[in-house]
């Protein structure tokens, strides 16, 4: 096999008569198994390390935690593997020619998975430390000769040591897992595949500023991203409903209405959205953003805890980022629409890989937000508590 020039995107002759250059597509059959294997293998170590040095609130039912967290974080690993194969595609072309290209790509995949795992591990350790720090504050030792600071330092030291060992474990594991996954696939490690069902990619003008590809009328990337972001927001808002039902039904109803609006907006965005749809999408994003900023700064002037600022959490931050992204996209699309060129295009040079990166990135953020919205999924600080002794004699 001869190495193809770096950066080229030519597909070798298939022998089927289709000799025209084909746009490389994401090799999902490579990406998904690799990402899944690394997500669940890394998840095993992350949960195991937590069992050794983590906060006790997060060490219960480790098997369920592993399944849940690895699944939730799978998009992050998919993102990492796509990034790795995208880089390999740019370096070596659509076909890996030679051992060097093959090994480098395998190492890239393992390294990317390790980066994803490391970020997750760091977040997990930080969360553990925060919970342990909180625990230290409530210790009786605070009144004794032992100071909270010393206990705190011991916790921090333990978490840092766990992080250091953890990164090494993840790297080693990902190397093994990548090698095994490639082996079980008969030595296949694809960085791209030829798109099926298209004779060739045809960019045709559309009313949007992006390009619309092929006869199937594939959606503009920005529309896709905005739609996925809206679906992610909807999922997060649906996930927070049970937690709000008990103490403020109005909020639950609001989140339900918001989620429905977001789903509707997302569906409409995937079609041929008109001006009204884009405005509606913008409003659907602006309203919760404003309410969020208000509730996290001065507190809402109504509700059971009026005028009390709420703490920010993983779910609401994720939702806000998605809403912000949707809003920006909607504005960009509106401006393009109002530009009135209609048929004027700014062809986005996004390859299938980059499209996938963007979409999976948004999905990863949404997935994280949903996990953060469900109590106990990523570990909750238990505020229920003990009460002072009342009985004396």
């Amino acid at each position, binding site marked *: *096999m001869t190495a193809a020039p770096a950066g080229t995107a030519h*597909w*070798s002759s298939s*022998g089927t008569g289709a000799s025209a250059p084909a746009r490389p597509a994401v090799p999902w059959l490579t990406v998904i198994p690799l990402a899944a294997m690394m997500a669940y293998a890394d998840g*095993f170590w992350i*949960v*195991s*390390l937590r*069992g*050794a*040095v*983590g*906060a*006790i*609130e997060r*060490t*219960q*039912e*480790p*098997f369920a935690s592993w399944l849940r967290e690895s699944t939730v974080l799978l998009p992050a690993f998919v993102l990492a593997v796509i990034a790795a194969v995208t880089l390999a595609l740019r370096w070596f072309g659509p*076909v*890996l020619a030679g051992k060097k290209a*093959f090994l480098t790509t395998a190492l890239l995949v393992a390294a990317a998975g390790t980066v994803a795992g490391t970020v997750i591990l760091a977040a997990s350790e930080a969360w553990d430390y925060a919970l*342990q720090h909180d*625990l*230290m504050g*409530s*210790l*009786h030792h605070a009144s*004794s*000769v*032992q*100071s909270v600071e*010393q*206990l705190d330092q*011991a*916790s921090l030291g*333990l978490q840092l*040591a*766990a992080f250091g*060992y953890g990164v090494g474990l993840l790297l080693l594991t990902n190397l093994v897992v990548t090698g*095994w996954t490639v*082996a*079980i696939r*008969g*030595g*296949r*490690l*694809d960085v791209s*595949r*030829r798109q099926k069902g298209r004779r060739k990619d045809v960019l045709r003008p559309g009313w949007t500023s992006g390009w619309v590809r092929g006869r199937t009328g594939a959606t503009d990337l920005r529309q896709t991203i905005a739609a996925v972001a809206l679906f992610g927001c909807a999922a997060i808002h649906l996930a927070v409903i049970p937690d709000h039902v008990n103490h403020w039904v109005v909020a639950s109803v609001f989140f339900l209405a918001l989620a429905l609006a977001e789903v509707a907006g997302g569906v409409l965005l995937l079609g041929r959205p008109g001006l009204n749809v884009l405005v509606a999408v913008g409003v659907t994003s602006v309203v919760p953003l404003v309410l969020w900023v208000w509730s996290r700064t001065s507190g809402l002037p109504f509700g059971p805890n009026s005028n009390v600022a709420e703490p920010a959490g993983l779910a609401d931050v994720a939702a806000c980022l998605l809403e912000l992204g949707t809003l920006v996209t909607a504005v960009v699309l509106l401006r393009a629409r109002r530009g009135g060129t209609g048929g004027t295009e700014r062809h986005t040079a996004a390859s299938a890989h980059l499209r996938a990166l963007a979409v999976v990135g948004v999905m990863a953020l949404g997935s994280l937000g949903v996990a953060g919205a469900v109590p106990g999924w990523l570990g909750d600080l238990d505020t229920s*508590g*003990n*009460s*002072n*002794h*009342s*009985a*004396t*004699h």
Partner: protein
Amino acid sequence: MSEESATTNEVPTNTVSRRNILRLSAAGGAGAALVAAQGWAGPLLAQKGLLSPDGAFAASSTALGDLLFYIEAFPTSPLILEPFKDQLPVPKALAPTPAVGDGSIKGYTEWNDPPGPGQGQQSSFKNERHQIWPNTIGSPDPLVYKIDLLLRQHAFTTSQVLPIDANGRPTISFDEKQKTYPAGTKRTLPLSTIYGFNGTFPGPMINAEYGKPALVRFENHLDENPLNLDRQDFGSPDWSFLTHLHNGHTAPESDGNPHYTMVSGPKYEGYMPQTFCDNLYLNWPAGNDDREKQSFFWFHDHRMDHTGSNVYKGMVGLYPIYDPKGGMDMGDERRGLRLPGVRKDNPDGSFDVDYDIPLAFYDCRLDDGVTMHKDIHDVQKEFPAAKNPAKHPEWWGKTFYKHFPNHGFVGDIFTVNGTANPVMEVKRRKYRFRFLDASIARIYEFKLMSSTKGPKSAASLGYKGDELEGQYRIPDAQQCMQFTQIASDGGLLPFPIKRDSFELWPAKRREVVVDFSRYQDGTPTTKGDVIYLTNVMKMPNGRMWSNSSRFSPDPNYKVPMIKIVIGDDAPDDSQIPVKMRDLPPLPSNWQTMLDNRLIFEVERGAGGGETEWLINGKPFTPNTVATSLKNRAGRSPLAQQKKGSYNLWEIRNGGGGWVHPFHLHMEEHRTVMRNNRDVTRGGDKGHPDDVSREDLVALDPGESVIIYRGFRDFVGPYVAHCHNLAHEDHAMMFGWEITP
């Protein structure tokens, strides 16, 4: 290498072959790993209760912790060269203090602060009174005992020793001036420094009786150092103490509840030097119900955060309690149940009972001078004089302790009543033995065994490391006698249980009758015959056993604890009764209480150096009442019970491959369910005395136990905690209370 090239550019046959080889290799490797894991790890996990998805993670976490984060070294104690020469000490009963002295001793009415029922008379802090004085329940004024906490010394053996290393090879040793002795030098052990009740280990024994209350004045003199002893680096650093009568039915102010003292009395973790407290033991059964009578207490230190180190340093005392009502169990084998015992009433007001022998088991490690002293308490500068982390050759041969052992603390020298490898001559008759595990974490399983070749040192048999624990083995030992168990923590059983062996968990008591006149096959014993009380449970660390009769017995692990030599004949009026004390009845509808039970899960939680052991995810906080986990009724009730009420509590082992001896103060409980199985009509096979009253729940890995408890007679705060004292000292405890 790509999908495309695979289908287009390569010769199909070669490609398929190569790919299939790769696939087969990958699949085969994974399969082989799985089979190996099942074959090797499966049984190991099963033994530790970890053969489950959660268990696999727990095992992995434990392995990571052990390998990477919690690395600890313990010394190997020098080998006792002449075992079974020191006589087993059998404690004599402590005499009560007379009301009026006789010149040599002050009567308690002549003390500066005499005990009494008045306000301010419960302790030197003059801010407490006894919740119930005996006359309010129709009992006489209490017998008064005086016990001083003293800084003294103790010898575990008089034998010479040979310093050995972890491989069992002779090694160097040191003396108090740090002089080095070459390997192979036989040495005499220095005395170990103790904090002792009246300066002895074990401390005094109070023979108590139901209906005769006892008031014990515990007075702290630990600041006095007349022998100019080195206190080393364990024991409460401020020399405070707090005494708990385990498990007396006692009011909070006399119970040694560590959180009680934080808000009452001294308003500190314990009683400081030159202070005292009067613990009043009513010797009155819960609810004045004879079926609640117990038979063997012990008292030990309960100072918050330092219970383990204080107990290990010697604060242990014995408190058998007899029941004279109808002569049922009054230490006279001619009356009542006719359990073994010949009572001698002494002129000083005490009484001793022959053939009724308490056995307190305690394991320790002696410093080898080369092991680093290092744990979280050093970081906290509790023992600045020790300048830890440091090695202490000057402490060679003295007790070594680690406050915060991540794997738990177990010793490698096993002692009985403070003596390592004692010998005891017995008459050819029945004896009553009161077993007590006063160890920090070690669990024992006892058998009575005989041997023709006798004990050999584990080192001489080629054992190394943890296998040296216990120092001696009897390779050819065979069981020769049975025990007849007559009592557990909660007193006499409803009926005796014949047992080949029994386990003794920390703080647990078991009472047995042994007939030394004949072997289990009916053959009579003869004078000079030798029997060994043998420990067959291998427990390499404080986590749990590795081998026992219930799980993977190790036929080579037979550690002799006491050499019993058959002596002369002696009269024996005792009998083994068919029926003893009835259990208090369970309500017929106890199962309807299950939904609203209180649930407490003991678990390991890493955090901040020493808060490693938690209950329901929380560390012990002295001024609070714990909250139950959510029960089936969907509630998370506080651990508050009305006086006179009863309830079901569930204690769960949160896993991680640890066992927990979980102790609940105040009243005995009865186990009704173990691992969701009703055991009221017969105990679990592994826990045959679940059909008794107990104060300690023995939790195997992953087990859950539901108990039925009463809350009678007193109000106020109490505690419940793991009696692995390293766990208790590191927050595995919770407060609960009885409200009026």
